[in-house]
């Protein structure tokens, strides 16, 4: 089989990334529905079977992919994946699914005394914030990555963490969400809201004196007194226990910028997915993030590239005309062959369109290395499926 090649792009050498002992984090990112989670899992398995001790952090895996890695429940703890075949028995693979709320709860529990923690955990505002998707999932994914990294360094459990990013509205959200949440919690808005709690009752009066009266009035009018009170309590509780959300966000951000991190942008050869990938590549460049390259999933492969779609299509047309409506053996054979030639022509056309899109990406981002994975007939159900994808990812040109 001739593999799909994107001649204009340098080749992404996946194995040299996975084998590089100085790489400790691989982040797979890209638009929704392009096979990000599968790519993360396949890279993790391949690294483990090359002898590394790997933990794969997935955000929202499809049921069967989770089963393929032996994950049956979302318990927020890395579980060992059985059935890893490393050459000298040295590698290992752990996998976990992120439980966003549980992660947030743990952060609270580890930073507050039990009474204060209870106060926060039962606050309606906290409950909504910790189970909402708007920014929290991104923040918690990064928080969990930070935690795993700390644990890996302290206990020597893992030397490589492969993380899949949340299915964000756009792929950039996860880079920005931590800083946004951090800057919000450290920001002026919060300081105003926490004044009542700190001032023990004198808050509103002090606010008025400070000229913020109109501001609280506005909030009261929009949110209602009860919401404002809950928000105030929540913010005060979280403020006094955490102090430094921004600091944590900055640490996570620094971790991502570290040369020990490798970003892999995942896309499919479709206009929207590649546009999103292009945005992401530009953003990583702007932020000096270590981009390794692009994985292009679901690429139509070509079995015989010399045999063009034009040849096949004209052959099919001729055979269809020859066969007409006749019911002879000859005519049946011609119709069958015409159908097969039509399939080949369609396949070549699709491959050409995909190549055009990929070349356009490469023209705009010439330095970005690409590895392409052919479209497979079925989804991945087991480790063997992941292994196949891993070896397709790693093929040399």
């Amino acid at each position, binding site marked *: *089989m001739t593999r799909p090649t994107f001649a204009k792009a340098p080749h992404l050498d996946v194995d040299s990334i996975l084998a590089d002992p100085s790489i400790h984090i691989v982040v797979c990112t890209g*638009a*929704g*529905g*392009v096979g990000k989670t599968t790519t993360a899992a396949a890279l993790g398995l391949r690294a483990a079977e090359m002898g590394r001790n790997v933990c794969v952090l997935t955000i*929202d895996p*499809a*049921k*069967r992919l989770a089963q393929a890695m032996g994950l049956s429940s979302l318990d927020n703890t890395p579980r060992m994946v059985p059935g890893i075949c490393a050459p000298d028995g040295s590698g290992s693979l752990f996998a976990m699914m992120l439980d966003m709320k549980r992660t947030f709860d743990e952060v609270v529990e580890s930073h507050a005394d039990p009474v204060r923690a209870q106060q926060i955990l039962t606050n*309606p*505002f906290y*409950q*909504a*914030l910790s*189970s*909402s998707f*708007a*920014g929290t999932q991104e923040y918690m994914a990064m928080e969990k990555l930070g935690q795993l990294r700390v644990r890996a360094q302290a206990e020597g459990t893992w030397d490589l963490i492969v993380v899949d990013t949340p*299915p964000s*509205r756009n792929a950039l959200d996860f880079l920005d969400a931590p800083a*946004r949440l951090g*800057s*919000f919690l450290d*920001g002026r*808005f919060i300081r105003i809201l926490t004044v009542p709690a700190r001032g023990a009752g004198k808050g509103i009066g002090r606010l008025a004196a400070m000229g913020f009266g109109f*501001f609280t009035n*506005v909030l009261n*009018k*929009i*949110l*209602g*007194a*009860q*919401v404002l009170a*809950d928000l105030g309590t929540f913010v005060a509780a979280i403020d006094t226990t955490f102090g430094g959300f921004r600091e944590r966000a900055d640490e996570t951000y620094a971790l991502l910028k570290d040369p020990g991190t490798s970003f892999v942008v995942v896309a499919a050869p479709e206009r929207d997915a590649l546009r999103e990938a292009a945005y992401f590549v530009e953003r990583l460049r702007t932020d000096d993030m270590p981009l390794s390259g692009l994985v292009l999933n679901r690429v139509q492969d070509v*079995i*015989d590239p*010399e*045999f063009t779609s034009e*040849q*096949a299509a*004209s*052959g099919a047309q*001729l*055979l269809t005309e*020859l066969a007409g409506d006749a019911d002879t053996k000859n005519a049946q*054979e*011609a119709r*069958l*062959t*015409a*159908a*097969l*030639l*039509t*399939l*080949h022509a*369609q396949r070549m056309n699709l491959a050409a369109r995909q190549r055009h899109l990929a070349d356009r990406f490469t023209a705009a981002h010439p330095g970005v290395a690409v590895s392409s994975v052919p479209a497979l007939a*079925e*989804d991945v159900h087991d480790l063997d499926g992941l292994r196949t994808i891993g070896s397709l990812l790693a093929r040399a040109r």
Partner: protein
Amino acid sequence: MTEKLWPDVSLHVVSGKGGTGKTTVAAAMALALARDGRRTLLVEVEGRQGIAQLFDTPPLPYEERKVAVAPGGGEVWALAIDTQEALLDYLESFYNLKRAGSALRRMGAVDFATTIAPGLRDVLLTGKAVEVVRRADKGAHDAYDAVVLDAPPTGRIAKFLNVNSEISGLAKVGPIRNHADLVMGVIASPKTAVHLVTLLEEMPVQETIDGVAELRAANLPVGGVIVNMTRPPVLTEDQMASAIGGDLPADAIRRSLKRCGLGAHEDEIVPALIREAEDHAQRVALEDREMVRIRDLALPTFVLPLLPGGIDLGGLYELAEILTEGGVR
């Protein structure tokens, strides 16, 4: 032509797993519903500017713009809802507080409300769509016959639409709660239908099935399923069976290739064609299994073709035509 589906629906919500083409389907639906002199609004909430790309117009501002004419003289308008603008809009129309907006922005409150505060963003987005829908009841001059919402993906759709439950944990009474109730009054009513777009692949079909269950559990009105990007059958059933069984007649193919002048490279071509056919037949068999799972949902189902040249305006009209035939009009 089949009978008209969803005659009382004025808000069509279109969701689907990422990559299934939900923006394209939403646009085709807006075109179908605008036929014969009607006026529809296509609304986008994710800040992607997907509508502008699809209709080949400059990026849409937070303002209703005409983007296309429908067969028979209808009009499709489009609106890209920007959350921050929607918040200021909301403050102005409900509290007459537009001036406070800039102060709130300086305080970081606008950022908070639109990006971090759980549920608030969704209330604003759905709230704006519902405001447009309600214009028709009020007989406003800028009312639309139907509103099509290009909504967040299936995994988040029930949560996105069910703003009431998000907000109820936060606000049991008060203005935000009243607003959420108003929004839910339209969304969870027979005026709304939520349509899910899928491909005939395992993961999107599973998400569709889960999505339908989730929507039903949240008492949200489920509309139809749109199976997108399907390919017409090339092989007959018998040919398919032999392709899957690996017993396509190589000699017969070789003979035919000679007859159409492709005999020269038969040694490479014949095995390639057979492998491609086997691959194709496997894929079609998988698609058939997935189609059965979609049919089992017993919802109105539309099957849209993969447009060979990619999506352009002409392609959108073609898809709209199929939806119209199927009862979307």
